[in-house]
């Protein structure tokens, strides 16, 4: 691999290997590689289609802690297992395969990289053009726009808020009228910083404190803080905040396929469902086709009335559980009557029987509008965070959900159909 600019980036599937920054991204997101993972991957790619063994010189430094061949091989296997975890099991298998000791003529066991690898062309900005054009065009162009504008110190340009009357929103959120201009500037700056963060940070610049210092009431500070936080979630979907709980693979891939030609991107199979939802989300953002519902409703607008209008939403929702569904789970009714939710993950949300509560129904409000929401249980996503929250869902606690979706109207009922949503 060469370190010069022209050979800096290598692409295989959703991965981009940067030999200068020593990073690997997947769908535009930097993977948390340690140096050893990078070195092993580099060695495998450079030696393709040849097999790589623990005794090869390109791995000598990485495996130097072990003098014996057997130990070196064991260590290499361990590192490759870590690599598999980082790349994702399915993707890893598409590119790396092993030969067992028995089948390896040299008797040590070997690994090889297979599958196509392409060099990416570099644009004048020094970024790989296919990163913006083929993998996730709108994410990067959007990011670049934000970062570039901030770097130049010029006006911040986010398509979503171009047409958003921030001052009017601030008034409705309870801010003081004579501070609006300076507050708008603070908000735009804050938004720019947060949206451009490559990694999600749990704490950022304290917007609440900044407004408080200017003399705004605590209530207004909280309201603005929450409102702007949603703008960040809406503008930075790559951080997964709008798809942490639920992602309808079916709806997302339908939307991706529908927009594929327009977005001029590759096949859906090149992207994970997360990658697809990010692509769709960013494309709609960049073309001003994703409505930011919290602002629309705050400014007195109505709920979307077209089935195909996608929007970012946030609202408070309560899980509506039918006893007949719970009665299908042994011990379900008894557990709920004793207010126990110990079985929320194992027996309820992750129940392998697809006929048990296949649709999770929620009722809630988008601002003052009552809505219902239906989620397919099979698309609920399990993580340590959701596992902690699912018992709360089952105990019918009111939860704030945010996501992107469309609205359907049946008589007087407003049905929210999310593509993805999170807590």
């Amino acid at each position, binding site marked *: 691999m060469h370190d010069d600019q022209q050979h800096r980036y290598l692409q295989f599937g959703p991965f981009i290997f940067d030999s200068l920054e020593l990073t690997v991204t997947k769908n535009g997101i930097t993977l948390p590689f340690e140096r050893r993972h990078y070195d092993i991957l580099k060695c495998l790619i450079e030696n393709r289609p040849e097999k790589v063994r623990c005794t090869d010189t390109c791995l000598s430094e990485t495996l130097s802690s072990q003098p014996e061949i057997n130990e070196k091989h064991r260590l290499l296997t361990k590192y490759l297992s870590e690599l598999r975890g980082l790349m994702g099991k399915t993707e890893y298998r598409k590119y790396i395969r092993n030969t067992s000791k028995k089948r390896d003529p040299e008797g040590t066991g070997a690994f090889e990289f297979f599958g196509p690898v392409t060099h990416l062309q570099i644009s004048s900005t020094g970024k790989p053009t296919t990163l913006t054009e083929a993998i996730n065009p709108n994410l990067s162009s959007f990011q670049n726009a934000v970062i570039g504008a901030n770097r130049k110190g010029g006006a911040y340009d986010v398509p979503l808020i171009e047409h958003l009357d921030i001052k009017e929103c601030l008034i409705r959120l309870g801010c003081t009228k004579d501070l609006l201009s300076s507050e708008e500037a603070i908000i735009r700056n804050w938004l720019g910083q947060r949206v451009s963060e490559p990694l999600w940070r749990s704490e950022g610049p304290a917007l609440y404190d900044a407004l408080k210092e200017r003399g705004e009431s605590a209530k207004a500070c909280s309201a603005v803080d929450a409102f702007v936080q949603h703008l960040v979630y809406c503008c930075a979907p790559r951080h997964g905040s709008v798809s942490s709980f639920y992602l309808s693979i079916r709806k997302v891939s339908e939307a991706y396929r529908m927009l594929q030609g327009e977005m001029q991107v590759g096949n859906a199979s090149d992207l994970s469902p997360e990658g697809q939802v990010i692509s769709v989300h960013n494309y709609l953002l960049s073309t001003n086709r994703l409505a930011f519902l919290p602002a629309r409703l705050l400014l007195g607008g109505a709920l979307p009335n077209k089935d195909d209008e996608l929007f970012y939403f946030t609202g408070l929702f309560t899980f509506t559980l039918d006893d007949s569904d719970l009665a299908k789970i042994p011990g379900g009714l008894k557990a709920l009557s004793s207010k126990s939710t110990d079985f929320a*993950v194992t027996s309820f949300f992750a129940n392998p029987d*697809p006929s048990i509560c296949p649709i999770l129904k929620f009722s809630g409000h988008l601002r003052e509008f009552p809505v219902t929401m239906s989620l397919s249980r099979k698309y609920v996503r399990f993580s340590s965070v959701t596992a902690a929250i699912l018992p709360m869902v089952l105990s019918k606690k009111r939860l704030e959900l945010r996501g992107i979706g469309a609205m359907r109207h049946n008589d007087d009922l407003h049905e929210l159909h999310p593509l993805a949503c999170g807590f």
Partner: protein
Amino acid sequence: MEARHFVGAIISLRDGHNEPRDWVLLKFLGEGKSGIVYQMAPVSNPSTEMRVVKFPSSDVRFQMTVLHNSFRLAEEMFPEHPQRLTSEERLRRLTDEMLLRIESSGAAFRVKAYRNLLRAAVLALVAHFYEQFRLGTLPASFLDRDDAVTPLIDENLVCQIEFKLDEELPNEIRCFLECCVEDVKRRIDALKTTDSYHPLLQNRFVKLLGLHLEGFLNWGELLIITNSDRFRKECISSEILNFKDAIPFLYYRASEEKQSLEAAREKGESGASSEVVDMILATKATALYFEETAVRYCPSLPYLSGFAKSWLARTLLLSDEKNEAVALLEEALDTLTTDEYPLERFDTLLDLTRLLRDSERDRSNRYGREALEIKERLGITLSS
């Protein structure tokens, strides 16, 4: 059962390389994305050696409302434990729970061997009908034309196709499977309206056996529930005969899995031998369970026992248990009489002829001659 109610259960666990020891679960610590966590201590000396143990969420023992047969209760430490039951009461509750579980139309979906059948059915649909779909010559009744699919037409097949549709597929295959989903749904509705909806994976024997295959029940518990009045009362007589079809279904799937594994190994590729072993074990269990139930439910149809034995023998051959297979095939001949079940007897004779051809030529010839006689009598055109 709520996770905290497993506190007090004694479980045998291996601690590193040592022999398994009995541990008592002392405290429920929480349930996460992939596991349930408890604090535990050795039963022999609970106050000295506290440990934290994580069980995978998929561990069926922690999904039960009755204490699993591998657990017992630390009764001295937990004298008031709600799971402290007489064995009769435990069995009564176990029966209640298992009968509730098999009520669900998706109960079969949680059984690995049955999911394997469903996956194969979707592949069969694509292999047998996609080309006709592409050419626009797919007959309206195509779902009735494939023996590998027709008995599996039910809600589980709909789910399986929908799961497949969640994967990235070439557009034309997607269109074909979308068309299949709709057709399967229509077919289910039509079968229900004519009261002829008896799919294999909704069979109560199949579903109850599935709970054994997944580890909810041991063999003894399975038979007790099968023979319980409640189960017998709710079973319709045709179910036992439908259940019969499960054995060849599973057998052919196990056989295909084995062939795929062998082909992969010949090419130097790796394959999961555990999948094959699991399918063979599931098929053996099905044949054994069918024989048990046939004897009790249909004593007037002794050929069912012969049918089960001959399929069990074929399954044993998949795991190279030739001697046991020969013995079973010969036992099967006792009930598969020439007059009443000539086809089944013919198949069994043919198997015996092949199996003994090299080792015992006389016996093999004897079985071969009888098979030929049946063949001539029935005009069977298959080559022997």
